[in-house]
């Protein structure tokens, strides 16, 4: 084929973005569209575990083997997104010895380094583990930041010429003679960086091939071309604790079950999770008992969780897929493996393949496989390089630096910033201007926020996922307005207000499920502060522009007995108001 093919990828989660990076590195022309911001769907709603494969070592050894392979790759190419915490499979007295041995064997069979440690050794590693545990198996689990990983993949894809459009929803598939020839999309704002308040409009994007990487939403895209994709979305709840009660991933060593994992994630610990099939990936009940049940159950492993502060809870939907002839009743029985559905072979519809199922840890492998598939169709024999070339930010770097001297930052703030930015630290943090801390909970400075705005436009939620600003214990109570302030100047008042509102709404969404104890105090303080200083209990000024000059002069009123004099109070209001 003479010209370079143009591939449209639908879905800006880990899978889609992995495909976009892979294809663009092979020299293919790629356009990726995502209905929200990057990680808007399931990727942004996961517990941040970099699987060692240990979890699947008994029931699903194919997945387990893939996990350990990719675990090693990601430690290498995405080092600034990964924290190698290590993991433990903890056996309590009521858990069976038989399963413990199976787990150990399974790990060995899959090539997952695993060692048995005694109760004392385990509690030395993690002092807050319950005193009555039996023993544990160590595995190379880790923590990974899905936001950072996806953003870095997107940056790499862009460097290789890909076009990435966020806030761009697919409204239809363009089908001609049983062949998908492109997609019709609706932009929430103009093309390019997202800018609030800008007319978007629709666009028809013609492509030589379309890849549907929309996970739990895959069925909807299929419907647009009349093909049936039986994704079985399954919801799971995750609760974020204010601090890390553990610095190692803690798994319960028993066959499938709810609420069996604690993942240390940045400054927090994430508790997971449940598994329940839902009909609609966007509309499903979020129940308080799911959170309570999870905290109760995990307290059997880490007792202090019972009384510790939670900062929010969120639900994600797994894009599980099961070949039509299997028919599992329980979603926990559905395989975690991924499937490549070529609609030509399957439904006699050319020009499109869907990828469904799978796990975050193996996103790159999935990207490689589908990219191979696409390249084969177009006779391109470029090698996949995504396993060898580090992501932007993960080139050689060290977090051990003199932060005060180099960046003028206090030690923990500098350390956290450099960990987030990786090899981009110098480029972002060395600024001439003042660099105050914008988000105190997570140690995010103005320079980092400005860098994120440069990347993502006026979308403060996109700034949030890039920087962690507003993701700490005050949940944006003290920094949302500062983040908005960073937008102002480059963006006008209305754009800024809209972005600010959206950020506050998003922050509130997850906190609704954590309103007791300390987080309730926090929410009340935030409310009082925002109400008193930003009029947020009433009618925040987000409609029409405010004429601030009207406040300056007050109102001139002529009084009866002293004609010509004005009766204006010193605060600018009118006497007697």
């Amino acid at each position, binding site marked *: 084929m003479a010209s370079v093919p143009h591939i449209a990828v639908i879905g800006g989660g880990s899978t889609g973005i992995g495909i976009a990076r892979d294809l663009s590195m092979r020299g293919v022309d790629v356009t990726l569209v995502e209905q929200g911001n990057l990680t808007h769907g399931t990727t942004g709603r996961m517990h941040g575990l970099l699987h060692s494969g240990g979890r699947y070592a008994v029931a699903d050894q194919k997945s387990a083997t893939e996990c350990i392979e990719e675990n090693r790759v990601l430690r290498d190419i995405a080092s600034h997104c990964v924290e190698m915490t290590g993991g433990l499979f903890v056996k309590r007295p009521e858990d069976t010895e038989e399963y413990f041995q199976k787990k150990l064997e399974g790990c060995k069979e899959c090539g997952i380094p695993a060692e048995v440690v005694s109760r004392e050794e385990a509690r030395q590693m993690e002092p807050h583990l319950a005193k009555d545990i039996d023993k544990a198996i160590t595995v190379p689990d880790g923590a990974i930041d899905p936001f950072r990983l996806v953003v870095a993949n997107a940056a790499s894809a862009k460097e290789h010429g890909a076009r990435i459009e966020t806030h761009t929803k697919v409204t239809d598939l363009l089908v001609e003679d049983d062949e998908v020839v492109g997609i019709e999309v609706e932009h929430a704002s103009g093309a390019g960086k997202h800018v609030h308040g800008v007319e978007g409009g629709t666009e028809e994007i013609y492509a030589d091939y379309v890849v549907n990487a929309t996970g739990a939403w895959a069925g909807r895209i299929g419907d647009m071309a009349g093909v049936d994709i039986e994704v079985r979305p399954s919801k799971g709840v995750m609760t974020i604790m204010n601090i890390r009660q553990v610095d190692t991933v803690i798994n319960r060593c028993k066959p499938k079950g709810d609420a069996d994992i604690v993942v240390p994630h940045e400054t927090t610990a994430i508790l997971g999770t449940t598994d329940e099939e839902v009909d609609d990936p966007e509309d499903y009940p979020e129940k308080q008992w799911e959170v309570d049940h999870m905290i109760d159950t995990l307290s059997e492993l880490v007792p202090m969780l019972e009384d510790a502060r939670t900062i929010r809870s969120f639900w994600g939907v797994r894009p599980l897929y099961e070949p039509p002839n299997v028919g599992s009743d329980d979603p926990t029985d559905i395989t975690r493996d991924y499937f490549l559905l070529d609609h030509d072979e399957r439904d006699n519809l050319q020009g499109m393949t869907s990828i469904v199922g799978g796990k975050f840890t193996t996103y790159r492998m999935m990207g490689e496989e589908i990219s191979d598939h696409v390249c084969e169709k177009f006779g391109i024999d470029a090698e996949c390089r995504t396993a060898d070339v580090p992501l932007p930010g993960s080139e050689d770097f060290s977090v051990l630096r003199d932060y005060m001297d180099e960046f003028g930052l206090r030690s923990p703030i500098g350390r956290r910033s450099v960990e987030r930015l990786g090899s981009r630290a110098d480029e972002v943090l060395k600024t001439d201007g003042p660099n105050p801390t914008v988000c105190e909970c997570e*140690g995010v400075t103005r320079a980092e926020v400005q860098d994120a705005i440069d990347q993502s436009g006026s979308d403060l939620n996109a700034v949030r996922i890039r920087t962690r600003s507003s993701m700490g214990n005050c949940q944006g109570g003290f920094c949302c307005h500062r983040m908005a302030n960073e937008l102002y100047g480059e963006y006008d008042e209305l754009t800024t207000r809209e972005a600010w509102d959206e950020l506050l709404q998003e922050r509130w969404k997850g906190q609704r499920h954590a309103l007791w104890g300390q987080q309730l105090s926090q929410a009340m303080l935030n409310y009082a502060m925002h109400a008193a200083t930003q009029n947020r209990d009433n009618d925040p000024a987000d409609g029409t522009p405010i004429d601030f000059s009207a406040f300056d002069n007050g109102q001139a009123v002529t009084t009866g007995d002293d004609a010509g004099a004005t009766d204006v109070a010193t605060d600018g209001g009118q006497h007697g108001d």
Partner: protein
Amino acid sequence: MSDAESNIDPADGTDFQPTAPNTGEEFEPVDVFPDSDDFDLRPGSDSCYKCSTCDTNCPVAEVDDEFPGPKFQGPEQWRLKQADGEHTIDDSVMDCSNCLRCDSACPSGVPLGQMHNTARGEYVSEELNTFSIEYIRNRILANYRTSAWLASKFPRTSSFMMNFGPVRWMMDKVLKVPKERDFPEFATETFQEWWAKQGGATGSRERAREVRERRGEPVDADKKVAYFHGCYSNYNTPEVAKALVNVYEYFGYEVVVPEQKCSGTPMFANGMLADARRHAEVNVSSMSDLVDQGYDAVASCTSCSLALRQEYPELFDIDGIEEVSDNTFESVEYLRIHEDLKGEIEAAEVDGELAAEFGYHAPCHARNQGLERQAVELFGDLEGAEMEDVGDSCSGISGTYGWKSEKYEKSMKIAEDMFEHMEEGTESEVGMTECPTCAMQMEHGTGYDIRHPLELLEAALIEEN
């Protein structure tokens, strides 16, 4: 949208204590980590909702724009801390004066004092070069007891030498101890020497029994206290310690003066936790034996009483430490609880040099124990004396803090309000406070003579009789 109905058991709801770190009964950092340098205080951050009350109460942040303040030093830094062993504590922790205003100001029970002390200990043991002048100077200042012990062997020579111009100039240049300050004089007879001459505990018991008989109380009444005098009233102001003994014996108490070392306050403030622990072990051991025998511990220095009551159990896991903490009191507070001090004062009168208008400054560490209004309320009814509260500012010296050249200016700036109120608010040039270093600062800034409440109490109750 959620239909999250709160299913929280109302009974559970009552467990929540808004002013206590809500980390659960299972969590005791002191038990989990035997070595104080390894405390994991991250859970303490759970109680912080960022209100910034601590920052607005911090006297250092008020005068030093570079200082990030207690919210950063405490809950934020601990929450951002990483367990990988390579995380370093920010050097700004050395600018904290350990006044502990933040600790008592926090409406939510964040253990700020514990966080600062632990972070500082970690910074000093891991970041500070033990051959640096800063370390050596701080170690000398923190171990004031050792210097004072030595100086008390030759009190007159020491008092002269320490304030001898060329010596001070050298100390400023080499050790960074500000030449502006005057070293306190050393007493020619320490309190301990005097106490031995009075017959020690045996003498006190006899005198107490006589008093009880005279007061019509049972001769065997269970009135006995163990006096923690601290270093300063032993070596520098024995008149305060003597006043304590006289006042307590006046009410029929037997006083014992157990074996004791430094309370540890200057060591906490300089991050010398190993030194502090060594001293604390001696103090806790001798004090807890006496507590077991029914004694209560009293201290005349408010920083000493705070150390025993609050900082010890926060930082160390020593046998008997909780019992000592629960049974330690500030000396006047103790009498206000157990005796009709108010009635006695209303009936009394002072004349002579203590018939004055005192500019009273409440030490920060007294505030931490809820005692900031005690002297003003108590002596308000005393005929002949007047009390003028000189405001709620910190005196700025914070023990050894103001004794460092690089902190001297800051220390004086913090004290500006206090100096001004002393000079404008009082006629007689005399001040009052419970804390020996606050007294140094008050004297340094105004030239006033500074007295301890126990001295006035002694003058009111005893000397006129």
